[in-house]
C-alpha cells in the first residue's frame, strides 16, 4: 500500500508522469473480441486505437447468440467503433476459439450497459 502513505506523497508527484498506461498497443494486429454497450459481440483485427478507446477493427464480424439456434456470424468488414460504446476488449485465443462448436452454443444475448 506504499502509494497511499502520506510519506509517499512526494514520490507520487513523480509517479504521475510515468503512470501505468494500460494501452491497447499490445493488441494491435491481433484478433480481438469486443463487447459493446448495447450488448453486441464483435470480433476482428485491431488496427488502431486512441486515448478515448475509439478503435479501428478490420475483417470484423458480429457474433449473434440466441437461445433458439447456434451462433450466427454477420460479416461487417472494416469498422470504427466509438470508445464510449465499448465495454470490454478481449484478446481472442485462436486455438481456443477453433475448438468451440458454435452451432451447439445457446445463450441469451448480453444485456445492454446501464449506467
Amino acid at each position, binding site marked *: 500500500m506504499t502509494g497511499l502513505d502520506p510519506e509517499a506523497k512526494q514520490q507520487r508527484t513523480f509517479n504521475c508522469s510515468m503512470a501505468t498506461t*494500460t494501452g491497447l498497443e499490445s493488441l494491435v494486429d491481433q484478433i480481438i473480441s469486443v*463487447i459493446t454497450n448495447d450488448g453486441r459481440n464483435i470480433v476482428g483485427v485491431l488496427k488502431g486505437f486512441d486515448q478515448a478507446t475509439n478503435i479501428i477493427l478490420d475483417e470484423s464480424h458480429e457474433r449473434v447468440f440466441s437461445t433458439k439456434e447456434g451462433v450466427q456470424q454477420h460479416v461487417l468488414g472494416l469498422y470504427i467503433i466509438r470508445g464510449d460504446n465499448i465495454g470490454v*476488449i478481449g*484478446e481472442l485465443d485462436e486455438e481456443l476459439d477453433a475448438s468451440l462448436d458454435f452451432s451447439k452454443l445457446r445463450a441469451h444475448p448480453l444485456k445492454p450497459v446501464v449506467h
Partner: protein
Amino acid sequence: MLFFLYFKDLVGQEVTVELKNDLAIRGTLHSVDQYLNIKLENTRVVDQDKYPHMLSVRNCFIRGSVVRYVQLPPDGVDVDLLHDAARREARGG
C-alpha cells in the same frame, strides 16, 4: 488519483470485475490507468454457462466507464490505511 494509486498497488492480485451489463469477469489484475481502465490476465467469466460470449478470451481490457464493482480479496485491503488516505483526499491534502 487515490483509487488509481490503490489499484496500482493491487497489481498481481486476483479480482472479480462486475460490469454494468451484469457480466462478471475474474482474473489477475495486470494493469490500471488514469481512467481506471483495467487489464486482466488469465480471465474467466464467472457464470460461463450463462455467458459463453468470452470463452476464447484469456486476457482482456475493461473500460473503466463500464465497471460497476471490483471485488477484492478481503486480506488484500488495509482498510485503515485506505480510510486514512480517503480522509486526507477529501480534506484536499
